Structure formats: C-alpha cells, structure tokens
C-alpha cells in the first residue's frame, strides 16, 4: 500500500465545515458506517448548496495542483493494479461492504453484484492499464513528460499529453462500471474530478472512491462524489463554470440540453444511451453445444440485470442450423432459470415488475393466437422472460432479464430488423466460427456497431474498450507537440 501521509489541514477543514452545515434528516452515513470523505457521504436528504459545490470545486482544483504532480504514471499504475486486485479479494473490506449492503441499496442480488464487480476489476490491472495508455497515447510516459514517438519514426517529434484541470462527470444509471473507470482514467490524466451521480446510485462509485482514499488519501482529496436529482440547473451551472471538461451520460435529450448550457471553453464528452444485441450464426449452432452457447447468452442477459448499454435486448438466430431459433430460445430460457437459482435477479419495485407483467401478458396473448410467437417465463415471478418472435424487427426490452430471440434468414435480415436503432447500437455479441466471423464483423462495423465480441463477454469489455467508438483516455487529454 502507499503511504501518502495525512491530509493537509485545509482538506480536513473543508470536509468538516461542509458536514457541519448540513442538517440531518436520516443519517445514511452512520447506517453505512463510512467516514465522511465525500459530499455523497452526507446524510440522505442533505441539501447540496451552490456555495458548497463551488467551494468543493475550488478545493479540488487546489488539491489537484498540490498533490497530482507527485504521481507518476508508474506510481498510478501500481496503485490501481493493487486496488484492482484488492477488489477481487473476498476479504477486502470495501468489497465485503459492497456485497453485504449492496443488495438492499442497489437492488442487485449479492451474486449479481459479485459477478459484476469481478468483471469490472478483473480488467483493472497493470497490463491493461499499460496497454490502454499505449493504445490511446502511443507511449507509456507521455503523461509524465515529453516522449518521442516509437523508434523507427523518422521525425524527431516529441509529444506530451495533459488532462483537464477539473473533470465534471455527470453519471447516469445504476451500473457503476463507466463511472468507476472514468475516475481511473481521470486520475491517469492527473485531473481533479467531481463525479455527480444520479440520485440513489452513488453507492458503488462512492465505495470505490473510499477504497482509493484509503490507499492514497491525497488522490482521494482530488476526487469528489456528490449526488443530487438531475436537472438542477443552479447546481449544474457551478460545475460547468468551474470545470474544463464535462463528461455526461444520459439520454440524447439530456446530452443536448447539457451541451447547450456549457460555456464555450472546455471539452464535452457525451455518452448517449445505447442498446446491444447478439447474433448467432448457423455454423455456431451446428458446432457448439447448445447449452454452452445458451448459457453464455444467458450470462450476458443476467449481468447487471441487463440494465447496461452493453446488455443484449435481442438475440438474432440464423435459420437452417441443426438447432432452430425456437430451440435456442428454449435453451436460453432453461439457462436463465438455472442462473436465477445461483444468481437471482432480486426483487423489483412494483412499477418495474408491472411493466414486465404487462409486456409478458401481451406476448402470452399473441402466443396463444399465433405460432409465430412463443413465450417462456419464470413461474410465479417476473425474474426472467424469453420471447421468441418470427418477426425480425428489433424490440427494445423492458430489461431486468427480459430478452427476445428472433429467427432470421441471414445477416441482411437482422441488419434490416435493427435499422431503427442503428444509431444507438453499442455492442454486437457474435457467435460465429471460421472465416465467416470476419466478414460478419466487417459488415456490422460498416453498419455502425462500435464493439463486437463473443457471446458471454458482452458485459465484460476490456479496459481498452473504446467507449462508443471513442478512446476513453485519449479523449480526455490535450497534446503539446514539440518539434525539436
């Protein structure tokens, strides 16, 4: 672990002043038993004021100036490599905490959380971090100083990459992956960061921030986690004014609204909502064992309860294999039921369960009146649902383990069926073997998919994944070229 020494007096002072300002209604912090490092540690219902936020931004910038230069890329990589390993350790206190308290706070079952955290932190290691930096910046040490291009270059140009002074991250949704990784990337870029989470979804980013604070308090002092209800223009205006990079995820409307309100300077990185699907070729149905393929497809559906933009809504299955699309759907249903035993979905609020029940009853009705629709669903619960439809039109799922299987004559029909969501496609999970895999991948790429992976890996992108087709670290930095 790293000994960074204690916090400076002003840093401590800032937190204690803020905490003293708050009137408590329900002491969430005591319930969660976490120290008050971040604004998100304040009691549930505590009001974040304009001046608190403004002070927090100023403190972050000041702490960034004072503490971040002490960190070399190598030191950061070593620290995150260790932290990634720690989070995979069953006895790591923050992980234990996440798994003990998480089901109640987040709604994910313990096993779903455990698998989600494993998939995330398995990518946070030295090898991946180095690969990411080289992929996005060309050289490992370009965040430390000027570095020449790799040997073999005929020019004597050197380049240095510098991150923003203060990144404001406006995170949406309940899946922590993008938020946590952006904290890592921001740290690599030596940026102070303020992460604003959607209300009720700070739990995992906050625990990660605490784990970072424990090993590197000065880095933790360059990070703030805060939560308020979206759309508070008064508070957002502070962020937009103080930060020189705004990263936001949300609906297209949200992103457009934010973009319009940003001052001219600074950088805006918007990540819109996305959907994903799987494509199963006739060869893979012939050569794979059905239960293995269906099991991997089910794992993609079950990961984070299908709530992520990398989660499949639909599996397109080619006709003509040894296994029919309906048989694949049936096998998928069987695997979802198995996973429900080991990795339950967990309870849902009534409105979300009602959405599933309502949609299911609609397909039940269709299924009873036409052989072109078949429905499989968990008995006496809304835990999982598989709908087979002959119609190749892409259907947006109501999520929480509700997935469509659609039979297609080939790639053309799938692409036509998914045309309506072409601009919102993230990942295509592909089950294909042999030379056809390459041509299919090329077709999907030309069509607009920004990520193609094996079925079973859809919710497990590598650290080097280019989020929505853009380099995550590369998009943060500003270059200085030195033509010596």
């Amino acid at each position, binding site marked *: 672990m790293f000994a960074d020494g204690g916090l400076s007096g002003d840093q401590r002072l800032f937190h204690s002043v803020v905490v003293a300002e708050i009137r408590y209604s329900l002491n969430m912090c005591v319930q969660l038993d976490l120290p008050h490092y971040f604004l998100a540690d304040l009691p549930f219902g505590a009001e974040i004021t304009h001046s608190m936020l403004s002070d927090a931004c100023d403190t972050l910038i000041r702490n960034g100036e004072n503490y971040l230069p002490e960190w070399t890329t190598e030191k950061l990589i070593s620290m995150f490599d260790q932290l990634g390993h720690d989070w995979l350790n069953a006895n790591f206190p923050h992980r234990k905490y996440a798994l003990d308290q998480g089901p109640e706070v987040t709604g994910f079952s313990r096993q779903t959380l455990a698998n989600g955290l494993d998939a995330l932190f398995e990518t946070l290691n030295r090898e991946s971090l180095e690969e990411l930096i080289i992929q996005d910046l060309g050289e490992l040490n370009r965040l430390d100083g000027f570095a020449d291009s790799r040997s073999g270059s005929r020019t004597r140009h050197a380049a240095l990459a510098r991150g923003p002074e203060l990144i404001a991250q406006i995170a949406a949704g309940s899946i922590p992956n*993008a938020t946590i990784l952006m904290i890592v990337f921001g740290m690599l870029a030596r940026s102070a960061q303020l992460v604003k989470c959607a209300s009720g979804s700070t739990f995992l980013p906050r625990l990660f921030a605490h784990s970072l604070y424990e090993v590197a308090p000065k880095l933790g002092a360059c990070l703030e986690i805060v939560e308020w209800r979206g759309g508070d223009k008064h508070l957002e205006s502070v962020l937009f004014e103080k930060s020189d990079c705004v990263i936001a995820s949300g609906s297209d409307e949200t992103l457009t609204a934010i973009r319009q309100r940003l001052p001219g300077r600074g950088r805006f990185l918007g990540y819109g909502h996305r959907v994903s699907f799987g494509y199963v070729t006739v060869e893979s149905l012939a050569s794979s064992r059905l239960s293995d393929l269906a099991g991997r497809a089910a794992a993609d559906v079950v990961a984070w309860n299908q709530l992520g*933009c990398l989660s499949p809504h639909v599996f397109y299955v080619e006709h003509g294999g040894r296994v029919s699309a309906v048989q694949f759907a049936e096998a998928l249903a069987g695997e979802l039921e198995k996973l429900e035993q080991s990795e339950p979905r967990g309870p849902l609020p009534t*409105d979300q369960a009602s959405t599933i029940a309502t949609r299911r009853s609609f397909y*039940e009705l269709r299924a*009873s*009146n036409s052989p072109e629709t078949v429905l499989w669903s968990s008995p006496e619960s809304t835990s999982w649902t598989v709908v087979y439809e002959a119609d190749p039109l892409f259907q947006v799922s*109501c999520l929480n383990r509700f997935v469509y299987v659609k039979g297609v004559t080939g790639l053309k029909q799938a692409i036509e069926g998914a045309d309506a969501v072409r601009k919102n496609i993230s990942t295509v999970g592909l089950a294909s073997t042999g030379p056809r895999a390459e041509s299919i991948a090329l077709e999907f790429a030309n069509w607009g998919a920004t990520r193609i992976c094996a079925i079973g890996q859809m919710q497990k992108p590598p650290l080097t994944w280019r989020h929505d087709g853009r380099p995550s670290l590369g998009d943060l930095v500003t270059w200085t070229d030195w033509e010596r």
Partner: protein
Amino acid sequence: MNQNLVFDDFIARVRAFIGSSLSEPDSASLSAAPSDSEDFEDLALHLFRFQFENVPVYRRFCEGRGVSEKNVHTWREIPALPVRAFKEFDVSSLPVADRTSVFYSSGTAGQKSSRHLHSAVSLGLYESALLRWFSHCFLNFKDTALRVSDLGSNCDPFVGELAPSEKRRFVILTPAAEQAPNSSLVHMFETIKRVFGDCDSVFAGDADSQCGWTVNSSRVVAALENAILHSTPVIVLGTAFSYVHLLDFVASQHRRLELPVGSKVLETGGYKGRSRTLTKCELHSLIETCLGVSEAKIISEYGMSELSSQAYLRGGFFRFPPWAAACVVSPETGDEVGDGEQGLIRVFDLANARSVMGIQTEDLGVRRGDAFELIGRAELSEPRGCSLMAV
C-alpha cells in the same frame, strides 16, 4: 339456442341486476363488497362460459393457460384478458352483421387504437350501466324523481322522461357525438346529456381533422356565465387536458368564475401529451381557483373504452358499481395483493357482455378494500440503467 338469444337473455339478467343493485341513492349500499354477492358470482360464471365459447381470441388465451369452463369455480379465477388484446384482435362474440357501433381508444400519439365492438343490445347495456352509476354518484334524485331503474327495460332503457325540474345543466368540454362518433367517452356524455340534461346543456368541444379534441373556451365561458346569471347549478364534464386548456384560457383573461352552489365537475382520462401535465391535486386546485367549485364537488372518473362501467373517486378511492369488481393483483404472481399494497388493476365488468368481462389493465393501483387508489400506467415506467429505454 341461438347464440344472440342466449346473450340477449343474459343481458336482460344483467340489466335487472343493475336495476336492483343500487336501491338507495347514496353510498349506504357501498359498504359491503357487492361483488361477493351470489348474484354477481352466478352472472360472472355464466358470462365467462358464454365468452369462453364465443370469443375466439379469449378462448385461445384461456386454453393457453390451461383454463376452461371446467376449472373456473369463482369469478376471481376467471382469466383476465390483457387490455392490449383490443388493439390486436376483434374481442367480440358479435357476428359481423350485428357490429353496429365501434369505440376506438383515444390512444397516445403513434400507438394503435383499441376497438370495442357493440351491437344495439350491448350498447343499450353500456348506457344502462353508465346512467345508473353516474346518477347514483352524481345526481341526488329526490324520491319523486324518475330513477334510471325505472327508465325502461330490455333494449331501450330511456322510455321514461325526467320531469323538467329534475333535469340538470351540463357543460361538456368534448366534441359532440356527431364529431366524435367512435369515442366511448363522448357516447357516455351524450347519453347522460340526452337523459339528464336540460335544453341549455351544451357540448363545447371540437374535433379537428386529425381527430384531436379542442375546447372552445369562449363557448364554455359563455355557457357557464349564463348559468351563473340564472343561478343554475352546472355539471361540467371533461377530460383532464380539456380542463387545462379551459383553465389556462380563464386565467389568461385574469378572470375567475364562481359557479352556482350545487355545481359539480367531473374530470377523466390522462393528458396523452395534449396539454401540460398536472397532478390530480394541482388540477383540482386550479379548478377550484378558476371555477369556484370546491374540491369536494370535483369527481374523478376512471374508465376506458375497453370497459362498459366506470369507477368514480368516492371517499378518496375509486369504486366501480356493484356489477363490476376491481382487484389489484401482484405483477409477480398474479394473485390479489393485500390491503394497502400496490399492484396492477384488474377489472371484471358484467356490462362487457359481448366482449370480455375480465380485463387486465396496465394501470397501477393500491388496493383499498374493494376499492383502489390509482397510481399511474405501468408501461410508462422503465427501469433505470444506461440502456436506451432507461429514464
């Protein structure tokens, strides 16, 4: 026996049940759960058998669940057809030649409309049901006044005439039936006006070429001012969005109307993007401010074109009449939830004789005894996440 005759005979029985259900003009008879009566059970099980045999889409739905006439023993076991069935199929036992009327749902922009088919006889049942429950909840007829139960029998329930002094003044914010012939709501208002309305009662809405409805606010205000001038109590009927348009108009003129004592307001339906959306509290408060009708005199209606009976907000909760029953069921198990718990609203409406009695709505409610509290529509609530449908 001819299928139509069987149904007509059944409809006559339901009408008799409707006629005898509300012997007292006030809420005294509502304390018991009417759907637990033997009559309701008997009629419901009979109707289920008829509908199972004669509505093909319903029969297949039941068979898909392994349900038939043989294994349904109480009305609560009758399968409820998803309300969306009315969008996809002809949910009807009527021979094509007898389908004399059809009601389409107003729907939300871009969605398919549902259709509810009627014959002259089933339409008569719809009218009997709506008049009976409306008069019971809204019109406190004196003993001497003609009651709907006295209004006739069989196909034509409107043989009788109310004495002119018993007639009421209605100002209705929707278009009239000739402009909106396929709206079950307009048909309901038209029927109410025809039977209970005085000669100055008016429809003050218009339908545009896209079948959108607008309120002619000047006409409404003129009609209301006329009633104020003559101290005639008014009953205003309209959709929630039509009130927003009207009240915005009144406010824009910096006016405030004070409707005569005894006036009432009925509001129904959602907003469907046709006006800004207000909570029920906000709407009622605005009505109170702009029209001078107190909260106690504002009644909300819960109805849909796929049903033939309506629920009115009484004592804080929605109640259907004794010939219809609402259950709130768990979305997880389909079983009825406990008192005070949330779930999906399921309605069994005996007046839905020629379509299907058991309807599974997409609306969320809280069970309050045999009544319910309305929360909203299930399909609008989407899970949170970063996927496309997330909010």
